[in-house]
């Protein structure tokens, strides 16, 4: 099943990513992703058992910040960008129906 991603997987992944896809997007996505994964799957042939994964190229450790308060942002500045501000807060549709 690797390398080929079907319609159902596309829909599942789209839900995980909170993306609504149109019918044609689903079809196109399935074939495009399959094509890309087919190329990517070449790394499956490599012998990597003894190889450590790299998640950082920098060799730093313990980069920390002193526990000193910095002024927070004026609420009006913060809410200026909000799509639906209300009572000094960010209003969102209720998750209940989710």
């Amino acid at each position, binding site marked *: 099943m690797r390398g080929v991603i079907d319609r159902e997987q596309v829909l599942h992944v789209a839900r995980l990513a909170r993306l*609504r896809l149109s019918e044609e997007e689903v079809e196109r996505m399935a074939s495009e*992703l399959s094509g890309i994964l087919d190329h*990517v799957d070449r*790394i499956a042939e490599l012998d990597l058992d003894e190889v450590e994964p790299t998640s950082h*190229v920098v060799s730093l450790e313990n*980069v920390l910040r002193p526990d000193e308060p910095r002024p927070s*942002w004026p609420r009006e500045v913060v809410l200026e960008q909000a799509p639906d501000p209300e009572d000094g807060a960010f209003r969102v549709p*209720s998750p209940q*129906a989710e």
Partner: protein
Amino acid sequence: MDELLELTAVQAHRAMADGELSAAEYSDAWQEAAAGDGLNAYLWRAGDGGAEAIAVEQPSVAPIAVKDIFCTEGVPTTAGSRILEGYRPPYTATAVRRLLEAGAPILGKTNMDEFAMGSSNENSAFGPVLNPWDEGRVPGGSSGGSAAVVAGRLAPWAIGTDTGGSIRQPAALCGIVGLKPTYGAISRYGMIAFASSLDQCGPLTRDVGDAALLLSILQGRDGCDSTSVGLEEAPRLPDRENLDGLRFAVPSDIRGDAMEPGVREVFEATLGRIEELGGAVAETPLPHAEHGISAYYVLAPAEASSNLSRYDGVRYGMRAGGNGDLLEMYESTRAEGFGAEVKRRIMLGTYALSSGYYEAYYGRAQRVRTKIAEDFANAFSEFDFVVTPTSPSTAFALGEKTDDPLAMYMNDFFTVPMSLAGIPAISIPAGLAEPAGGGPRLPVGFQIAAPAFAEQRLLDAAHALERAIAFTAKPGEGNG
């Protein structure tokens, strides 16, 4: 007037310091030039106003074009995406702050592939950027706007970001210099994240000297970025004139049909120049480099899928589907806010991280990344530099590759390995070549990579080579 625009940033800097050039007059000349943008390269220009928070009182350095991926307080910052249309950040990126503190006014914010995902600038929600050498062709991407304004004389210099080649490739396709510094040399704070473990800010300039000056302003450790290191010392202006005793490695496995004939010719010729300058050229294997694309197109989308999840219509930016429930709001906002390529990579990355596939994709890609870094380490034990063409082809026609994602991804073939290894690499214009399928000759870039934090050596060598190549061609001047 025009001769003002011909000065390099270094020359202008000296002239202003010596009082031979009025900073105001110089800035005005550039604002006027920027106003004449016919390439769709700028998304915002100082002339459009709203820049109070990022104003510079005493300009002392050439004004600069900034990729629209850097947050600038009060000034629209979109990362080329609908989802951030109209967003005005409440803060300014560290890299931009360093420019302001150095006395460099912001000339404008440049167009780019949406969230830096692309190699042609055709993925911008605000339309493609045109290549000043041939307006029917792409400038490369994702920092296409920054490359086009420098090549098109709409800005003296610019900054961009490079995740898998997004500075070097457009610099090559537009015939200018592009430098991707060592990962960690410049703060990422305020630089809108695409793939956090790969993203790096860097200069797009007319020559290597300007790149050195700009890097010296931008680099440095930043308390706001845990992964920033800075350089041991700020780079000096390069003055090296030969390449005596320096050893250049050509990856043996890339001498296939990976590139256009014209690109190959220029590449071979440049290797010849290196030898004329006293440098030694030999082949060395980089066995895992060819898997760079595979590893990159797992790791970068995986990180991106997470980095772009914050665009959810709750706190800022676009919101759609407000009448339904939360899920409907999320899905409508992201469906309408993101373009096709961004959706494609979010899907790819989400899939690669999803349960059952993590080890097969993300885990393996991280291990390939380790092998690629080892390959470079081995090469650098014998050589000072690794060289390749920057891009397999010259600038291609608008729309030529938009229907074939994989073909588009292959543009990054030569630039991705250095990004995965986190090492510095520079692209300098090496000559002109006839594009596959004919047409007027176009710039070809030559890429030089060095060990981590060896920026000074890299700039010195690139400068020497640049002098010898003496690339003087300009867009619009009969390059046929």
